[in-house]
């Protein structure tokens, strides 16, 4: 399993009712169902991923996240998770608000555009590409990239409390350097959020 998913798993209470926005092949939901008795649904738009979820017995709903979460009631989930998807949606600010309307808590992970290698590439006059951002600028699903500072500023503006933060490198290690300079050394950011 992807190491960021391992980290997230530790943040989710056993027997939670969970919604996974952009659930991919359903790995996280399946893992949590097996290890923590978590129930819930994954939202996914890619046909091949929907097929994989169905094959592994994950409840998957073929939804376009950009259409909003109108089909879900307020506070109907314990936790709403969105891994490596925030940067690919039309309006990340609305998506965050929707997450925390539908779920009591939200968990978000995204690639940090403020990582020093990104900054270096930009300083050299090029759009950054890396292990966590492998796409060319002209053919990428990642249309709303942000830095640690940007994201935390948005949370403050939206009245969202950050309950927990983890910033890791591409190998999902979190050493002293990362703790001291998260915005510069972190490649992937993980947040646990709640509405204030």
């Amino acid at each position, binding site marked *: 399993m992807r190491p960021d998913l391992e980290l997230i798993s530790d943040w989710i209470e056993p027997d939670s009712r969970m919604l996974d926005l952009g659930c991919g092949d359903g790995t996280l939901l399946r893992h949590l169902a097996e290890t923590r008795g978590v129930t819930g*649904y994954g939202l996914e738009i890619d046909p091949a991923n929907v*097929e994989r*979820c*169905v*094959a592994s017995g994950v*409840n998957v709903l073929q939804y376009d996240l950009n259409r909003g979460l109108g*089909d*879900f009631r307020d506070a*109907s989930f314990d936790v709403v998770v969105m891994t490596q998807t925030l940067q690919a949606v039309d309006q990340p600010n609305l998506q965050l608000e929707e997450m925390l309307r539908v779920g009591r808590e939200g968990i978000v992970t995204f690639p940090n555009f403020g990582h020093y290698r990104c900054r270096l590439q930009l300083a050299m006059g090029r759009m950054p590409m890396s292990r966590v951002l492998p796409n060319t600028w002209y053919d990428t699903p990642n249309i709303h990239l942000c830095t640690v500072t940007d994201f935390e500023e948005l949370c403050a503006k939206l009245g969202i409390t950050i309950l927990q933060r983890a910033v890791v490198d591409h190998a999902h290690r979190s050493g002293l350097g990362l703790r001291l300079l998260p915005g510069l050394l972190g490649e992937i950011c993980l947040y646990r959020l709640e509405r204030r």
Partner: protein
Amino acid sequence: MPEAIPADSVGLVTPRKIHFDRPLELDCGRTLPSYDLVYETYGELNAARSNAVLICHALSGDHHAAGYHAADDRKPGWWDAYIGPGKPIDTDRFHVVSLNNLGGCKGSTGPNTIDPQTGRPYGPDFPFVTVRDWVASQARLADTLGIERWAAVIGGSLGGMQALQWAIDQPERIRHALVIAAAPRLSAQNIAFNEVARQAILSDPDFHGGHYYAEGVVPRRGLMLARMLGHITYLSEDAMRAKFGRELREGGLSFNFDVEFQIESYLRYQGRSFVDKFDANTYLLMTKALDYFDPAARHGDDLARTLEVALARFLVISFTTDWRFSPARSREIVRALIDAGKAVSYAEIEAEHGHDAFLAPIPHYRAVFTNYMNRVAEEVA
């Protein structure tokens, strides 16, 4: 005629008939003292009797869902693309039961069968039947076949509504419900189309108040019009454009009311060929069953509350260009299932065919269907 019966076909099949003597009380308040149900089966029932799957048919469907009745049949059963060895409903793993519903015209008791009390066809005196009545009669069929619990109940369109009703009325007797291209109830527009179809039949001078059997005629024009109208709603505009466009049969305009455009030719052909194989009274009954379907009505129009009793897991499937029962209608079902905390997966299949897509071989649809049924097969093995 198929050159040879394909390897992934269930092959030659023979319908069977069961007579039921126990009276069936119907939603309309009347009682059927006795009745017959015609059905087909494909694949073997396992020793635990746990691998049985029920196929529910749509408006003009019947029990002949797969295979051939004779080696020289031009076409296989109506859902042959999805039922057979190695197909999504894999007859190497499942015992498939497919019946003709009560009120049908293909052998089960209906308007064109003899009323034992009068010795004449029921005709318009056949009682109105509902989706609930069908489920009740299908449950008795299951009793007779020794099937305590279906591995899955599966249907498209009106068939999907039966699968949904099964989950509500017989929660202990169904493990999975596959609700395809359906809706939780008809919209005003849906009912409007049905009403025009009915008026076409009812106003045909050959209808004779439904007693046309005795007159030796059938309301051909009315039934044909009803079917033509139906076909317009089964296809998407894109599919119609792609298939027919404004193409003319002859090179130019002929300034008369004969068939000029290919679409006219298609509709007339569909209408005409339908008249020879379907009964007008049954068509009237089936459209009424559609109009009346509204399981939430008994629970204050709250579909989520209606579904609370369900124990089944659900797969709901819709098709992007289906405007008869659009994806939004399927999402109403999904939303209610989520609110009721039920296990549900939902696939919204990109397809150009319109409502008819549920019968078409579409790779993504097929893959989702296959993967889901594989899980069901593993569960009941």
